């Protein structure tokens, strides 16, 4: 049983990468060509001939990609690489499909139908290929967020876009897990625009002096979380005796009790299977707050902090006993 040398693998990969990049440029050129041709008011016949040519060239290129991937499959490249290649091919098929749907307007029915069938054929081929080249290993759910299950090495990648994405693994990156009695400050670039997951913390104070993309809290007990503006959503589950000060676009609280929430939220906050929830307006103040508000894109003039909807009290038209507005005298001031 011989494994190919690393250098062979690298050169093959480099070759594939170069090929794919070149083709990427080529297809862009073709699409531009076609667009130009349409703009110049050429006849419909000319347009769809051009479409067919570009479409078929790209289709053949995708078939080549698949053949190339199949020919190197024999344990020469990692699962990550295989998945990347499959994803890249998938993207190209999607691109081809879009190209087709963009062009439907001027294509004769039979050309359109045949192009559609060809896209489907490609998709099926890709599914078959995936079946053959991806090792039959089940996705593991356990400790998905915290474990270092990423077998990634620094290898060249096909697409810059993908590369950026792949290097984020393990995905929920700025994660605090299983801490007791700690005070942690997360600031600026390390968490800016990132997804933050805080899980299984007890007696901790966490300050996020930044503008994360999302914030997930899970299994917190007796904690205080102070956070700058979150671009998107905040999701809280199974937390007790905790204080959260946050600004965000959406907020959902599940299965939690004895919570104090100081909120700036641009849509209506919702709670479900939760009780003893006290709500107050956001009042966290730290040096870069206003910059972070701008960066987060949150509407600072719209705050629905007191428009809480309780999923366990929707139909009744009676006020939910599970939450209330925190009396002003009880509100604390939160500073950096």
């Amino acid at each position, binding site marked *: 049983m011989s494994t190919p040398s690393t250098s062979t693998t690298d050169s093959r990969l480099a070759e594939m990468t170069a090929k794919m990049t070149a083709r990427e440029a080529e297809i862009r050129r073709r699409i531009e060509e076609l667009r130009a041709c349409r703009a110049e008011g050429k006849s419909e016949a000319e347009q769809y001939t051009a479409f067919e040519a570009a479409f078929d060239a790209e289709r053949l290129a995708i078939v080549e990609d698949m053949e190339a991937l199949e020919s190197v499959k024999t344990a020469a490249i990692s699962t990550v690489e295989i998945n990347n290649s499959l994803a890249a091919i998938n993207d190209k098929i999607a691109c081809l499909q879009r190209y087709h*749907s963009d062009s439907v307007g001027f294509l004769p029915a039979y050309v359109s139908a045949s192009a559609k069938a060809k896209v489907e054929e490609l998709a099926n081929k890709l599914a078959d290929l995936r079946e053959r080249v991806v090792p039959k290993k089940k996705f593991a759910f356990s400790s998905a967020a915290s474990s270092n299950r990423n077998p990634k090495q620094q290898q060249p990648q096909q697409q810059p876009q993908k590369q950026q994405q792949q290097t984020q693994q393990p995905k929920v990156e700025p994660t605090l897990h299983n801490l007791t009695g700690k005070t942690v400050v997360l600031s600026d670039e390390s968490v800016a625009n990132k*997804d933050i997951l805080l899980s299984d913390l007890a007696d901790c104070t966490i300050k996020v002096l930044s503008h994360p993309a999302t914030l997930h809290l899970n299994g917190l007990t007796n904690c205080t979380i102070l956070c700058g503006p979150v671009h998107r959503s905040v999701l809280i589950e199974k937390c007790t005796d905790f204080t959260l000060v946050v600004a965000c676009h959406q907020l959902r609280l599940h299965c939690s009790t004895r919570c104090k929430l100081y909120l700036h939220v641009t849509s209506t906050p919702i709670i479900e299977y939760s009780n003893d929830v006290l709500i107050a307006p956001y009042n966290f103040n730290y040096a870069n707050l206003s910059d972070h508000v701008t960066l987060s894109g949150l509407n600072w003039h719209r705050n629905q902090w007191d428009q809480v909807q309780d999923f366990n009290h929707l139909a009744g038209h009676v006020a939910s006993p599970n939450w209330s507005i925190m009396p002003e005298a009880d509100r604390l001031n939160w500073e950096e």
Partner: protein
Amino acid sequence: MGFYSILKKLKEKEKEVRILILGLDNAGKTTLVKKFNGDDIDEVSPTLGFSIKTLEHRGFRLNVWDVGGQKSLRSYWRNYFEATDGLVWVVDSADQRRLSDCKQEFGQLLVEERLAGASLLVFANKQDLPGALDAGQISAALELDNVKTHHSRIFGCSAVTGLNLLEGIDWLIDDIASRVFSAD
């Protein structure tokens, strides 16, 4: 089956397509529908009930049913299965922690008799977030390759940027059209 439901089925022949959008809460279902429709997405609130949007797209009339995904709402999903042509399952690709919940709810839909004829589009949403798994990883997590009950396809997408929304919906319409309107 009542007389009205038969009538309803018969009338839904004229390039009218019923699409049901489901997924866990916070998956981005409403944002996705709004973005596709060109609406403002800045102030989308969590869905407490359901919304219906009728969109004209490529000569089809799409009746898009968007039902809230909170845990306490999921038992009501079945009230919306009837006569569904296309099921869109939306996944928050950045929420790995609940991926097992997601798979479980998804699995329950697959065995639903009243959804048996529906084309299945999976949107691995929130690809614009740094923590998002890609479509291949979501596909693996949901074991999409093992789905034999429906025509299915997965697209990585972002409801916020609009990435791949059109591609996904176009695939869905094509798939439905090839089954339902093939007589044309």
